[in-house]
């Protein structure tokens, strides 16, 4: 299962990076490979040769990392090694793509300088006063997103009325969390500074109206879909396995629909906007190349924290501002701490064995996590079984090698598992409030534990 999920994530990353890299070589708002060029020079032979070479190298890079992904997915034991290899693959792929882009961006900037294609003095901000004046009227009304907000509150109402003892608050809050994300994206679209692409106000207005309207419409539609899917999934999650299947199917469909919707909208905007800009000829007004490098933006003279990306879809952080630095480095720091913490946790789980010891203090089961202790007087029944029945993990770890932590097993209720997949038999200990399943790495140790408890 872990390999399947990892495989899907690797596939998504391969497609995303390759698609982003591929489209970076197509002019968008006069920008090619992160470098802004006058429209009249976008189809120069030297530029086309560079973008062609870049694309070939991108395909080789993605092909190479696809091949590298195979051993990464096949090595599943121990889990800490599997986790480590995944992270190394992701970091390696991102770094390699970064180097590729840096090389060709530098080459194109050198060509631009050589040919004297600078369009305006740097650090000049160009604002179209007509766009600034009319921008407020461009988005689709936010009232279209209100019904989605209301629908997203239904699971919260349900949990308050019918399932007050439920632990699944996070599931009930998920629809509202998605709505929050859509509202935030809408806010970013509407609040962001408009770019004066050229000195023709009509074209600037048309480009912005098209961009803002389509993005806000896309978000209104996706937020409605998300609200309905997630609310229905909530009700399905209280049914049996067949309902869970529909809930998971709907969630998968929702995520695919959101990604597809964003991609289609982005493509449509890009195509229409570029046809408007290329049709009018002339030069772009904004010269910001010195602040962009490999898709990253660092402009201390620009007070904005988030700006529209030059490569790919969405926004990027302005590393030149204090807020931007805190946001960027804070996020990287949190992610790094989480990954390192998780790696240490997985190493401990792989290395520290499950042990059961009986002493005057009582019975102690030790593991890297979820250690437990109880008195022999609490034991209602002990037995040896061939394998642990299937159940649902509530708080623990499940890998190809072991299952550890809290599970819910239909036959026994709340259970604690300390079970190696390839070790049999399994010791089952029934206590008043839970059932414990235990195997040692060596089956002889499991039998010894059974005999010690039987006494």
């Amino acid at each position, binding site marked *: 299962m872990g390999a399947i999920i990892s495989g899907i994530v690797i596939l998504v990353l391969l497609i995303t990076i390759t698609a982003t890299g591929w489209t970076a070589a197509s002019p968008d708002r006069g920008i090619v490979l992160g470098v802004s060029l006058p429209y009249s020079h976008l189809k120069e032979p030297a530029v086309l040769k560079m973008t062609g070479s870049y694309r070939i190298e991108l395909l080789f890079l993605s092909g190479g990392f696809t091949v590298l992904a195979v051993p990464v997915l096949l090595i599943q034991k121990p889990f800490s090694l599997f986790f480590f290899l995944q992270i190394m693959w992701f970091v390696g792929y991102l770094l390699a793509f970064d180097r590729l882009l840096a090389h060709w961006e530098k080459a194109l900037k050198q060509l631009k300088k050589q040919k004297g294609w600078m369009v*305006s*003095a740097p*650090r*000049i*901000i*160009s*604002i*179209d*006063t*007509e766009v*600034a*004046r009319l*921008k*407020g009227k461009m988005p689709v009304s936010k009232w279209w997103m209100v019904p989605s907000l209301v629908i997203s509150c239904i699971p919260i109402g349900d949990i308050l009325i019918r399932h007050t003892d439920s632990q699944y608050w996070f599931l009930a809050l998920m629809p509202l969390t998605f709505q929050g994300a859509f509202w935030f994206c809408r806010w970013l679209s509407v*609040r962001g*500074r*408009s770019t*004066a692409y050229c*000195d023709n*106000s009509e074209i600037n207005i048309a480009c912005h109206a098209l961009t803002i309207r389509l993005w806000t419409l896309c978000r209104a539609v996706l937020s409605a879909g998300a609200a309905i899917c997630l609310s229905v999934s909530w009700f399905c999650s209280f049914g049996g396995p067949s309902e869970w299947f529909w809930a998971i199917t709907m969630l998968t469909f929702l995520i695919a629909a959101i990604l597809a919707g964003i991609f289609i909208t982005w493509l449509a905007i890009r195509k229409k906007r570029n046809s408007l800009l290329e049709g009018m000829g002339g030069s772009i*007004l904004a010269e910001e190349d010195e602040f962009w490098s490999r898709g990253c933006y660092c402009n201390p*003279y*620009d*007070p*904005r924290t988030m700006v529209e990306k030059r490569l790919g879809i969405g926004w990027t952080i302005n590393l030149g501002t204090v807020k931007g630095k805190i946001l960027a480095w804070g996020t990287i720091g949190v992610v790094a701490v989480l990954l390192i913490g998780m790696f240490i946790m997985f190493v401990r789980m792989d290395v520290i064995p499950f042990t059961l010891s009986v002493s005057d203090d009582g019975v102690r089961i030790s593991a890297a996590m979820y250690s437990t202790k109880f008195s022999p007087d609490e034991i209602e029944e002990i037995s040896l079984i061939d394998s642990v029945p299937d159940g649902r993990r509530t708080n623990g770890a499940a890998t190809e090698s072991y299952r550890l932590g809290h599970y819910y097993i239909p036959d026994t209720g709340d259970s604690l598992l300390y079970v190696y997949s390839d070790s049999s038999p399994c010791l089952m200990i029934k206590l008043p409030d839970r059932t414990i399943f235990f195997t040692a790495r060596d089956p002889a140790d499991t039998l010894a534990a059974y005999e010690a408890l039987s006494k």
Partner: protein
Amino acid sequence: MILQLDMSGETPIYLQIRNQIILGIGRGELHPGDSLPTVRQLASEVGINAMTVNKAYALLKAEGYIEIDRRHGAMIRPIPETPEEIDKEMKEQLALLAAQAAARGISREKFMEACAEAVESAKMLGGN
């Protein structure tokens, strides 16, 4: 019209905004009755404090280039039917420019050429 602001330049931003709007009027890019963005809209676009834009608009209003209406925002003032005379301040500014040119050894012909170019770009001059 396009406002081009140099965020790292010596000239204060409010003065750049004021100068560019006057240039826009002179070049015919802004016409009498044309609306300008509100203070908040322009401040949000540029990413500066609203007080800076307010200062620029207040200066333009005091100098008679724009009118500010609470409902409609800032608008370009109609050109007066009775042409105004070149006032003392304008004459002093012209004198300063001519003196700067003389101090740099620029010839009269070159200076007049530059003046002619500036007059040419100010499409609104001469009642056009």
